């Protein structure tokens, strides 16, 4: 574990070459460019078990992903540990990453929020769909706000 990790971690998930699956990475790129103090951004194709170790020492975690069937333009919800490994463990849900942390560390994970942005099409080689581009624009201020609140919490 690093000595002083940034208190707010943003874990963005998605494949930039898979159409609207790029929503997570694109928001991550924008956030990284903004270089907000106290915020670290990690981008992954998929969440995996070792991402539980990225949560160590954090005050707040924000998961960012594209969603199918998500209410447009995006949804925000709190995440709690849950062992929902039933569909696939090649890629974990945010809740399963939190549950992995709980199991291997024996302590509660940091509070976590999910920002799920609606995607429409996920074909290999496709760019972002027009609808998803609009959802991204709508989601960006929300992500910035979630980060700001997260940083403020650490100073409270």
């Amino acid at each position: 574990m690093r000595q002083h990790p940034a208190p707010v971690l943003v874990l963005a998930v998605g494949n930039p070459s898979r159409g609207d699956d790029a929503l997570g990475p694109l928001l991550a790129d924008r956030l990284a460019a903004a270089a907000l103090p106290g915020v670290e951004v990690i981008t992954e194709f998929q969440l995996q078990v070792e991402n539980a170790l990225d949560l160590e020492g954090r005050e707040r975690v924000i998961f960012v992903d594209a969603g199918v069937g998500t209410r447009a333009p995006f949804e925000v919800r709190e995440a709690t540990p849950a062992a929902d490994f039933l569909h696939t463990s090649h890629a974990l849900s945010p809740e399963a990453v939190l549950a992995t942390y709980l199991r291997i560390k024996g302590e509660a994970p940091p509070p976590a929020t999910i920002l799920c942005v609606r995607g429409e099409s996920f074909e290999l080689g496709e760019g972002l769909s027009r609808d998803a581009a609009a959802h991204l624009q709508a989601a960006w201020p929300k992500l910035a706000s979630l980060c700001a609140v997260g940083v403020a919490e650490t100073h409270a």
Partner: protein
Amino acid sequence: MSPAALETARNKDGLRRVVIEPLSRVEGHGKVTLLLDEDGHVQQARLHIVEFRAFEKFIQGRPYWEVPVMVQRLCGICPVSHHLAASKALDQVVGAKHLTPTAEKIRRLMHYGQILQSHALHFFHLSSPDLLFGFDSDVARRNIMGVAAAYPDVARQGVLLRKYGQEIIRHTAGKRIHGTGSVPGGVNKSLTVAERDELLRDIYQIVGWSRDAVRLVRQLFEASLDEFRAFGSFRAHTLCLVRADGALDLYHGGLRARDADNRRIFDHVDYSRYWDQISEEVKDWSYMKFPFLRSLGPEDGWYRVGPLTRVTRCDFIPTPLADRERREFLAFDEGRAALATLGFHWARMIEMLHAAESIKDLLHDDDVLGHDLMAGGERQARGVGVIEAPRGTLIHHYRVDENDQVARANLIVSTTHNNQAMNNAIREVARRYLDGRTLTEGLLNHIEVAVRAFDPCLSCATHAMGKMPLSVQLVDADGTLVDTLVRG
């Protein structure tokens, strides 16, 4: 009845259709369909791969130097394998017949890191729930959290083994994902002393845990010998790379094909003309092709690749602990474990141990700190790169035009090589466990256990939330939905 007899039912009238879609704990989208008659006897069993198209088109028209980076987006689980196979193919295009010692060793280090993390993920998180608790145990417990609760040390070691492999990749490829370390003709970075020392700090623990994992699989075999021995097993031709002296080599070598009795079909074949030995057949019911050995024809020439093939068909493993485990594996149960489909898991852990030992050796080799990174030569129009990826032999083949753009690409991935073998495995399981019985979640999971033994990567990395619902559908022969079983 042979497994092949279940590829197509003789008469489909009045058969009941069972669809398992997608397979749980299998990368991407896969679907199994079973056709059952009125008495519940299996008349047809097929594994369908539904998303393997467009890879080659994705690459065509791109400048060749972009390819090793962009092919990593084909797969979120083994991007390094595509990164290295593409680099090896494009080494030939830039005329680099021999890499510098530093470049080759950095690439090998990256590859062993990938093998370590992928095998750890597969065993500890995908397959160990089935193996530790039983194939038809409580589905709510049969997952990694169940393993974590019952075997906390095993679960924790799985996470840390995977993490260590990822750290190797980060230091050699430059980033956790979308690494750029390997380029046509060599690599663009070596290790610093600080990076080498950081990786050295934990490697002896990693070797120890890897050896413990091999022993755990052995114990699982000993505890359920009858079931493990027979589960989904069948005779198969095999294909893998081997080093010039016959040793296991996951990074480079010649092609070796053996029959089910381990007799030579061909050996030490230069893979740059792989099409002289391997062809592909298309079947109208599957998007994925069926490769076969040309000399044996499409009917009999199908083969199996991957850890079980590599460990049982090499002459030796060039690291001492893994080779000792290989010999014990081959001798166990009078050689029957080495023939069993579930032997994949044991072989996979032996390879993980080999990868850990190889990483240790490379970290003690000062060439990984060198600065002579690139080689070159006379430009060529074509390149073929072959590597033994975690799931098996991976072929990348490119033709590059005078504008340095990829004019043609052909990729044969491990899962495609194993297409027929996986189909045979599920037919064997369907015949043995499902035939004539009332279907339950536990019984259907037997099919998935057989598929998971091969560790297929059925698609690439799209995992948006809500993208992978799991349902089992019972459909009448006339297409009417009779029942649906949803998990999760």
